[in-house]
């Protein structure tokens, strides 16, 4: 593995810190924004928890409506993109601006910023794509923000087995599911777009260097946060 060596070497902050916090402003600003984003998801996820506690009848069983294996794969995609992002960060920290480069005596080529950030973007875009497919499938089966559509496949299942499909609270199920995953998806999309922007304006022109790679760290923070939120969502929405 290539990082047996890396784990040893030291890691510098991407830019001389500014006064006050000892952290440069872009990073500080991003952290403050993330704090506020926590409160945003608190409103959505919190409402979900509250509603689910106070619900009149049983919730749909995990896997009854949602396609967990598919989403599991999606989760994996997002985790991969997250690790790719951090690899990109490490790469530029070592000044590796290139895409791939042969390392003498190694079969695996060594990836640079261009490579890892591209992987990140692809995985992220993949996540969004899969989620769209999932939405389309669900709506096709009759799962909508308003509940199970009249006369749809799911509506019939729900009639047959109300407990399993949480017929009583299908409306809440739809509302919370689409709002939470939807806004997470929105966050991912924003991330992908801004990373594409950086890729073409900063990464390809090799604007980043081991001395200053703030953009990478800041977008990275955002990206990992989105990943973090998904980890929570996946558990409480799909598995519980």
């Amino acid at each position, binding site marked *: 593995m290539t990082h047996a060596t890396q784990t040893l070497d030291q890691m510098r902050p991407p830019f001389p810190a*500014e*006064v*006050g*916090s*000892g*952290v*440069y*402003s872009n990073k*500080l*600003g991003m952290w*403050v*924004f993330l*704090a*506020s*984003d926590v*409160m*945003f*998801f*608190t*409103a*959505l996820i919190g*409402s979900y928890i*509250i*509603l689910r506690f*106070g*619900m*009149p*009848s049983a919730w749909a069983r995990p896997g009854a409506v949602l396609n967990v294996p598919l989403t599991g794969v999606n989760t994996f995609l997002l985790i991969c993109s997250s690790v790719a992002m951090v690899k990109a960060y490490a790469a530029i920290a070592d000044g590796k601006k290139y895409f791939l480069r042969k390392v003498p005596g190694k079969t695996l080529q060594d990836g640079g910023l261009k490579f890892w950030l591209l992987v990140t973007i692809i995985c992220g875009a993949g996540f969004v794509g899969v989620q769209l497919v999932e939405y389309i499938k669900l709506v096709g089966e009759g799962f*909508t*923000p*308003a*509940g199970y559509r009249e006369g749809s496949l799911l509506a019939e299942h729900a009639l047959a087995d109300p407990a399993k499909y949480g017929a*009583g*609270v299908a*409306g*809440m199920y*739809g*509302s*919370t599911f*689409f*709002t939470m995953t939807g*806004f997470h998806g929105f966050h991912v999309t924003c991330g992908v777009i801004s990373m594409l922007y950086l890729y073409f304006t900063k990464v390809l022109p090799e604007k980043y260097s081991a001395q200053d790679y703030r953009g990478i760290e800041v977008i990275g923070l955002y990206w990992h946060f989105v990943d973090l939120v998904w980890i929570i969502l996946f558990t409480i929405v799909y598995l519980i």
Partner: protein
Amino acid sequence: MSFWRKYIFSTDHKIIGIQFLFVSLFFLLVGGLLAMQIRWQLGFPGKPMPGGGILPESMVSGGVILPEYYIQLVTMHGTFMVFFAIMPLLVGVYANFLIPLKVGAHDMAFPRINMWSFWLALLAGLIMLAGFFVPDGAPRAGWTMYAPLSARPDLSGATISQKLWSISIVVLGLSSVMGSVNYITTIINHRAPGMYWFRMPLSVWALFITAILAVLALPVLQGAAIMLLFDQSIGTHFFDPVAGGQALLWQHLFWFFGHPEVYILILPAMGMVSDIIANGSRKPIFGYHSMVFAIIGIAFLGWLVWGHHMFMSGMNPTLGSTFMVSTLLIAVPSAVKVFNWMGTMWRGNLRFHVPMLNAIGFVSMFTIGGLSGIFMAATPVDIPLHDTQFIVAHIHYVLFGGSLFALFAAITYWYPKMFGRMMNEGIGKAHFFLTFIFYNMTFFPMHIIGMGGQMRRIYDPTIYDFLKPQQPLNVFISYSAFALFAVQILFAFNFLWSLKFGKKAPQNPWDDNGMEWSLPNPAPHGNWDRTPNVYRGPYEFSAPEAGDKDYLPQYVKLPTDRDPVPAPAPAGH
């Protein structure tokens, strides 16, 4: 720089502040005009409103305000005043304008984000205003937008505009988060050498804490507004009990944001008033540190009291008790602030310039508003008072008597820094005294009709036997309100006239200590050409070292002063 880059799409924090000023004064005017119509209806129900003829039939018939229009008036009055007048005036204008100037920075940390925050705020305001011009009129659920009324067009009678409200609030939230991220970063990272945490003026402290509140509170409202929007448009059921939703959930979310919000509306006012009172008394602020901790205390407690708006909502009474206690405790840090302001004036050498007058007005009026809060905080007493005009009186004592008086002070005080000219002293004084009188004549009687039981947001009190006897008081209030509005024209005139004809301002018109006065008026783009040094705290009035002058600015280097080490001490120093 072209005119466009300089004045329209400017990234200069001072220009952005001024843009905010004009826009939010416009919305203040809109809110005021709506209030006048409210007062006409409450004072003279069923009588044709002068000039009501120009409004469409869907709002007034034969000049008489219709019930549905009345609710729109109240809703939009509250919404505009809170979200688009006072909040942008305090935070949008003065956080933008003052923070870099007072901490000795060249500009905000993220000037472009700052510009976007203004344009988004304007956009949000226009979306909200559009509500009046869509079919079936403006939103109709009060500024608190209680669900399910707000979520169900079939029940409220307004379809499009309810959605517009939600959208506008989401946009506004975005704008103010952007702004606040900027303020926080700037204050933490861009203070000039020597501007230690405990050398910051209280106005900056207040704006800093306010920004933290905004960053944490507004996203919650955004989330709630989004859920509301979905309930209204794509058929979700968050707040609709029929499908397992919870009607009270909206109230919890709204007030979890809402109470921190009301402190967002008062803390900057308190901060700026502290600066002005110290200046007007020619004395250091009394107990600077405890003033800072009082601000932090109020902000912190503000998160634990939201339930006091829900005592009657069917919320678990046991929770009500805890919320009562936490609410009452807020009186303590507030006490520190009020009495420390008085302590500052004690044995001072008071100068009654217009800002000082308004600041004193603020202290006395905010006290009334705060004290009326104590009545409502005591749960049993809140039973008869909840959702009556007593609440309306409280609202206006804290928001008009508090925030708006502070704003009259602040606008006059930093006017020279913004436009290089002074506002007219005579008109200013006249405006203050007349406003003070008519303001009390307008809002004090509301306590009494509230005790009498007059509910809020009712179109016609006279249909109730138990309200008929106090109708004369309503008429009295209305006349005073019209006078109050008329008096505001003095201010508008003074403000606009002085832009062109006000007398040129000297460098430091108020003999103040703030960093901003080391610059010419108006301050140039980029403020200082080289980062200034800060040598002392902000309130060294009448300090012995000052010699014959009775003030000692932060930027003045005395022979005894050493230059500060460039990197200011870290937080918690």
